[in-house]
């Protein structure tokens, strides 16, 4: 055994401070009494990302195949939207988003 081994092997043991296990157990009981965190919904997230990816790929590959009237329709929709008051449009889109979110939330009571 060389000098370094001797020094590092001869570490003097220290005693835990008084009341250490009591403090630890108090912390453990606090930990046990707090509700478990809600896990991230990976299943839904992965399904959503997959659907978005499929939609993106479909848009990229199918858009050249769309008939020209759909482009005209898009331009007409844009013109129509530009005539609407932006504040009203913002309110409507917020309400629509909230409605979709509420619908999605309520579906969990139906399917799960």
């Amino acid at each position, binding site marked *: 055994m060389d000098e*370094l081994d001797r020094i590092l092997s*001869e*570490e003097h043991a220290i005693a*835990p401070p008084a009341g*250490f296990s009591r403090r630890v157990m108090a912390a453990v009981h606090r*930990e046990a009494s707090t509700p478990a965190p809600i896990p991230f919904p990976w299943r839904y997230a992965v399904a959503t990302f997959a659907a978005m990816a499929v939609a993106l790929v479909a848009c990229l590959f199918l858009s050249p195949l769309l008939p020209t009237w759909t482009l005209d329709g898009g331009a007409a929709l844009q013109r129509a939207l530009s005539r609407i008051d932006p504040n009203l449009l913002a309110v409507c889109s917020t309400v629509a988003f909230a409605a979709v979110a509420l619908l999605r939330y309520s579906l969990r009571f139906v399917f799960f």
Partner: protein
Amino acid sequence: MADDEDLDAVRAVLTGDVSAFQRIVERWQGPLVNLAYRFCRDRGQAADMAQDAFLRIFRALPSFRAKSSFSTWMISVAANVYRSQLRRNLPELTGLEALADFPGLSEALVETAGSREELVRRTVQALPAKYRDAVVLFYFHEMNVNRASESLGVPPGTLKARLHRARALLARRLRHLFNSDTVPTEA
């Protein structure tokens, strides 16, 4: 035997008897506080680190699969806690590393550290993290390479390589403290 008692306590905790964790704390508080002290060399901080480690072990109990012994798994979790805590507090530990490279300072450093032994331990603490962790766990496990490598989560060969490199660094940094023929070169 002790591992059976630990496993009984683990099973009790997992079935909802949180108080059974006290048996684990009582049995392992000494080793975990001492391991923390080897990492940080401060008694107060060691107790805080060990408390965090016990909490992490409690949270992680459902993931214990009994592939290794409970003690090995527990020390591995604790070592991870200590290493990540030290990563946050590391800058204050690096001063000695820089000083040790200057010749003629060994006596002053010994005086600052309190003893030659303490200077060696502090120099270990100032090693790069992966070498420090290897040295600390190797000597904590009484120079058992297999147990130290399990605690560190690396193959035994990797641990041996890190120990070899750590010893070379220590030899260079402590060359003014030891005669060249007493400085170890190989694990």
